[in-house]
């Protein structure tokens, strides 16, 4: 088993527990042990863009230090930290870059963290689980599949922070293929659509629900028009805005194509035949199980 440092993020321990559960199960099947440090904190979700800001980088850097501590303690085998949530990925990666390239802010961050037992060296690589899978090779993923998702038409929804800004993304922003490659390995049919990278409305969901409802409506409708039966995502906020927020969409647009939204690891768990606890579909709104049963991919 390869042991990799793993950063869950707050939401994955609560509202998005299905994301974590499905990931840990699939990782085990693929021979990866995801090691979570005992101490970690909220990464801050968003990268602070002001050139003078130090405070908002403390949270991500502190987490990177925890990952380094795991490596020093011999609990993991590489300098990578695997993330699942696209926002955590983006924030940790960008703060890591600031730390490593801006010597003035690096010094300030270190000075502020004097209570820590050691200083962060900057030597951690932030990756997303999709990158880990790609690095491992899609044929390895395909080998682990016991029940190919034949006939399931899935639209990959990338969202924003997995691919942008330039230099931070896990794939080419113009023509990403990483999610399509995964779907192919799982035996599903990837459905491309124009809005796969359109922002879901993000944090405006707190106080501008109707705007998010409009965006979700467009995204879901476009996907459905192209023939998609389901959406996959890698971000708990996208999942919330496109899934549970469908009740808000219905208020404004009573007639729309409601399709289920799941985390990509849940489909992996399904294809790997790992059972109910791993697929964790009870956590999804709307419920994807009726569709999956119809397709013969899920036993009663």
């Amino acid at each position, binding site marked *: 088993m390869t042991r990799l440092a793993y950063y869950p993020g707050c939401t994955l321990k609560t509202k998005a527990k299905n994301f974590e559960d499905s990931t840990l199960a699939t990782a085990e099947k693929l021979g990866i042990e995801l090691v979570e440090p005992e101490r970690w904190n909220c990464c801050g979700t*968003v990268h602070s*863009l002001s050139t003078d800001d130090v405070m908002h980088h403390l949270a991500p850097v502190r987490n990177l230090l925890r990952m380094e501590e795991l490596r020093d303690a011999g609990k993991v085998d590489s300098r990578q930290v695997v993330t699942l949530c696209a926002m955590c990925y983006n924030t940790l990666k960008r703060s890591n870059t600031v730390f490593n390239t801006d010597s003035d802010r690096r010094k300030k961050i270190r000075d502020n963290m004097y209570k820590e037992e050691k200083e962060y060296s900057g030597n951690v690589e932030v990756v997303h689980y999709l990158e880990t899978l790609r690095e491992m090779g899609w044929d390895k993923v395909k080998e682990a599949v016991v029940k190919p998702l034949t006939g399931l038409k899935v639209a990959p929804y990338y969202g924003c922070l997995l691919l*942008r800004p330039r230099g931070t993304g896990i794939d080419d922003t113009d023509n990403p293929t990483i999610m399509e490659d995964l779907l192919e390995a799982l035996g599903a049919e990837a459905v491309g659509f124009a809005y796969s990278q359109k922002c879901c409305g993000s*944090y405006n969901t*707190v106080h501008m629900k109707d705007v998010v409802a409009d965006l979700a409506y467009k995204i879901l409708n476009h996907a459905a028009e192209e023939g998609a039966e389901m959406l996959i995502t890698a971000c708990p906020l996208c999942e*919330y805005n496109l899934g549970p927020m469908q009740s808000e969409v219905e208020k404004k647009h009573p007639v729309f194509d409601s399709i289920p939204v799941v985390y990509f690891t849940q489909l992996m768990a399904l294809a790997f035949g790992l059972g109910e606890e791993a697929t964790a579909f009870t956590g999804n709104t709307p419920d994807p199980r009726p569709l999956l049963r119809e397709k013969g991919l899920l036993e009663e």
Partner: protein
Amino acid sequence: MSYPRSNLILRMDPENKRFKDRVTELSGENVDLCFQCGACSSGCPMTQEMDLLPSKIIRMVQLGLEEALESNTIWVCTTCFNCEVRCPRGIDIANVMEALRQLVLRKKYNRVSLDELSPEELRDLPQIALVSNQRKLTA
């Protein structure tokens, strides 16, 4: 990738220049590179809610017009970076939006308030939504 230099020379009042310099410093972006092509605005998912388009905001910063801070544009932005990848001159418009927000927020202004949220909403929202909302829109 190396970016083209701008030959734009603008003369403006000291106040306007101060504002423009501050935005440039805080964002790390050279807005003088913008030639108003509008690619950022066309890719932006939130333009329906904005009173001024992103490209217009950049124009206002170019001219040192502090009225840019009064728009709702900077608050509706979701920092999705669609503008950044589209800009042919390599400007990160999202950085400029953040700088404009910061100039207002640092004067102890909160765009949203936790008081406005009902207990039901607080029970329903995932942490990721609440944390990012507070980070971007409050002091």
